[in-house]
């Protein structure tokens, strides 16, 4: 092209000489001007494109480009003025239609004119830096028609009025709307933004401000959210139908701000229908709606999350602090699980499993579970209950689910060592009384604990299982070696490793003489096979089966504890005994004795003893008789001890103390470990490190840590720095 242009120079010089007519330019322009008129009047059919093109071509070629261009501007302007007037005179409804029709006309005419004057577009305009014909036409249309004093405001108002009518539910001509908006966008983004979008947004803000005010006064939270969501969708749909896609984010921002952001707190806290009510009533749909709407505004989810957290903490606190609940630990834990399930479901169904919500929920649970110091005990009791009886008839997978849930609660506990303590106790009881219903479930739970807290946590629990197994083998060996067992009662001994089991030093009770023989035999057998061991009887943990004959000759087999057995055996030789006498004869600690007498004499249907006076409580000088009139439809009668399902207050204190005692060496070990690697460290850092190390088991108290440090200094593991008294040194 450029090479051609260079040659045009030669041609031009050549042509120039040919043209002599000074009126040439004037005449040619007249022809073109006439053509433009005709085009605007829809009369172009008679015109010859070639002729017009040739005229324009020649004008440009002969240096009349300037004249051609300015002539075009004047002619087009005058035409647009006419159009503008006819649009202005259009009344009411047809205003937009007229505008649209004229716009289409103008576009068509503009294209024709551009085609005719293409040569000017191609050569003259770039070299003289003028606006190309098409753009010129649009600019003129904008300045003359759209920005004419009467039309500009009217157009804006008409458009906004139509939007308002649509918002109020009327059907409007969306196609026309789209064309007009498209026209504004064709005229340049700034025209669209200045003449329409800006006003549109501010009017919308007003509209939604008023509407939301009205809604919030009349609707409950759920309805409001429904309405807000519908409005939002309407606006998005509106944008997709006839606005610039770039407006979507702006108008949704307006709706979000007016409908949600400014009423957020009112909505969440709305009485009888706010977030709290939705949570209580499990309104998944409403909650989901709230989530998706509030997510759109910056602090929305934080507000929802905070309210939910506060509410969960509150409910949880009420639950764990409720003295009613404390009576039934199984129910207590079940309620915790239900609560967790409920919120898990809400987060899953309504909050799209949002991680931040899950974290908030977890921290709330952690917070309130640890409010009650007995939570570890109760959780262990719950497991105990499930493993004793609750899991009958349910499939293995269900067992796993229940255990998994319990583990989840366990994870929230800060005092995991307390749980361990209780769990050990409960497990020991289950194993010794043979009440475990499923070995698999027991083992699976231990595996879970192991993955959660490490080998150290469960090694003793596993030791308990091993003891059970070896005891079984030992008993077989024992009976195989005893050729003549004779009449003596059969004995089953569980040999328990000290340390693995929660044994308490209990005073030896006096076993009935019938038993002593076989016990001695076993002791001899056991010590004969295992050198250097010591056996001591834990009579407080055993059970016994007794055959008893009652007054009318009916026989029953009584399943009782070792203590109860000792008491009942006394009645073989006596008719009446006082509590005091029994205590002296058996040597059972008074507290345990009372408990076992209570279960023998005061439980209806199992009262193999009679008591005078008849009362619930046992006093020291109460008298007991063998109850000849005892009857039962069962051959086997199981007499449970009145087991304190949950620990009594003093016992609880005792356990606490033992836990505290157990913690001491752990804290000391941690301190020594840390100091060994650091050599010197200041007080605050030690406390922080120890807390961190022990976090998985319990939260050590700083005061206790300080005491341990002092004790270690006394024992010369550590010393204080001579200059800086806050600094400790490790003494190797």
């Amino acid at each position, binding site marked *: 092209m450029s090479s*051609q242009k260079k040659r045009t120079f030669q*041609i031009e010089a050549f042509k120039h000489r040919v043209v002599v007519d000074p009126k040439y330019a004037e005449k040619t322009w007249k022809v073109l001007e006439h053509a433009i008129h005709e085009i605007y009047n829809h009369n172009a*059919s008679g015109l010859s494109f070639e002729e017009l093109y040739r005229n324009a071509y020649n004008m440009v070629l002969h240096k009349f480009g300037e004249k051609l261009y300015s002539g075009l501007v004047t002619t087009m302007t005058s035409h647009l003025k006419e159009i503008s007037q006819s649009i202005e005179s259009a009344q009411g409804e047809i205003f937009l239609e007229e505008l649209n029709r004229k716009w289409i006309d103008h576009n068509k005419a503009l294209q024709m004119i551009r085609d005719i004057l*293409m040569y000017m577009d191609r050569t003259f305009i770039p070299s003289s830096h003028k606006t190309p014909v098409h753009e010129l036409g649009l600019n003129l249309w904008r300045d003359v028609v759209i920005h004419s004093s009467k039309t500009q405001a009217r157009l804006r108002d008409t458009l906004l009025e139509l939007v308002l009518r649509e918002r109020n539910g009327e059907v409007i001509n969306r196609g026309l709307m789209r064309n007009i908006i498209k026209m504004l966008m064709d005229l340049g983004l700034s025209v669209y933004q200045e003449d329409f979008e800006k006003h549109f947004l501010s009017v919308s803000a007003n509209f939604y401000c008023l509407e939301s005010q009205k809604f919030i006064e009349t609707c409950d939270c759920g309805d409001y959210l429904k309405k807000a969501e519908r409005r939002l969708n309407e606006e998005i749909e509106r944008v997709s139908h006839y606005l610039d896609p770039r407006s979507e984010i702006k108008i949704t921002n307006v709706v979000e701000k007016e409908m949600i952001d400014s009423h957020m707190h009112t909505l969440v806290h709305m009485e009888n229908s706010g977030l709290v009510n939705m949570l209580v009533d499990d309104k998944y749909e409403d909650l989901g709606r709230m989530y998706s709407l509030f997510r759109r505004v910056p602090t929305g989810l934080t507000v929802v999350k905070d309210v939910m957290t506060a509410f969960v903490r509150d409910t949880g606190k009420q639950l764990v602090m409720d003295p009613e609940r404390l009576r039934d630990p199984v129910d207590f834990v079940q309620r915790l699980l239900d609560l967790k399930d409920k919120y898990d479901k809400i987060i899953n169904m309504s909050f799209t499993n949002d991680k931040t919500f899950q974290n908030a929920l977890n921290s709330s649970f952690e917070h309130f579970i640890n409010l009650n110091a007995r939570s570890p005990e109760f959780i262990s009791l719950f497991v105990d209950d499930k493993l004793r009886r609750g899991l009958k008839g349910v499939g293995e997978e269900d067992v796993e689910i229940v255990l998994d849930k319990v583990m989840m609660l366990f994870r929230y506990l800060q005092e995991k060592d307390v749980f361990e303590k209780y769990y050990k106790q409960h497990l020991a009881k289950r194993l010794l009384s043979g009440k475990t219903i499923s070995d698999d479930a027991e083992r699976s739970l231990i595996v879970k604990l192991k993955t959660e807290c490490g080998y150290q946590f469960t090694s003793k629990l596993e030791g308990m299982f091993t003891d059970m197994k070896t005891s079984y083998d030992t008993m077989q060996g024992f009976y195989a070696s005893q050729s003549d067992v004779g009449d003596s009662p059969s004995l089953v001994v569980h040999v328990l490793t000290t340390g693995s089991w929660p044994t308490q030093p209990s005073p030896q009770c006096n076993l009935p003489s019938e038993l002593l023989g076989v016990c001695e035999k076993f002791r001899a057998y056991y010590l004969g096979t295992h050198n250097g061991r010591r056996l001591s009887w834990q009579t407080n943990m055993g059970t016994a089966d007794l055959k008893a004959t009652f007054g009318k000759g009916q026989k029953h087999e009584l399943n009782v504890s070792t203590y109860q057995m000792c008491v009942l055996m006394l009645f073989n030789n006596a008719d009446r005994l006082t509590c005091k006498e029994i205590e002296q004869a058996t040597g059972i600690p008074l507290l345990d004795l009372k408990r076992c007498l209570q279960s023998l004499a005061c439980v209806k249907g199992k009262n193999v003893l009679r008591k005078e006076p008849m009362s619930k409580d046992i006093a020291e000088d109460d008298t007991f008789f063998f109850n000849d009139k005892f009857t039962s439809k069962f051959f086997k009668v199981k007499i449970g001890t009145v087991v304190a399902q949950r620990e009594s207050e003093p016992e609880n204190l005792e356990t606490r103390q033992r836990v505290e005692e157990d913690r001491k060496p752990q804290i000391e070990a941690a301190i020594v470990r840390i100091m060994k690697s650091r050599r010197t460290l200041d007080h605050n850092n030690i406390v922080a490190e120890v807390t961190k190390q022990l976090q998985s088991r319990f939260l050590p108290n700083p005061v206790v840590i300080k005491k341990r440090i002092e004790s270690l200094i006394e024992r010369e593991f550590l010393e204080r720095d001579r200059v800086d008294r806050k600094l400790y040194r490790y003494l190797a």
Partner: protein
Amino acid sequence: MRKEDTVKLISAEGFEFVVDKEAAMVSQTIHNMLTSPGSFAERQHGEVTFPEISTTILEKICQYFYWHLQFASSIDLNSENLAVVSGKETEFPIEPELTLELMMAANYLHT
């Protein structure tokens, strides 16, 4: 060949060349003539008169249209053919005495 698909080009001396529209539209000017909205005379009648172009030149132009149609597009599409295209047999022959006038017409027709 249907009438709608062709266009009649008329030279200054009145000679008529009937060519495919597709070929004629190689010229941007003719393209605009035949596609511009509204109905100009050329579009209605399917003929274009060029009072400033002689028969010899117009004939050469028509030849060029077809040459362009055949080779220009293949250059765009497939660069492997470029060597063949630039070879002797595909070169578009222009007699030196026609050069000047042909250049002027090319400028006018925007080809």
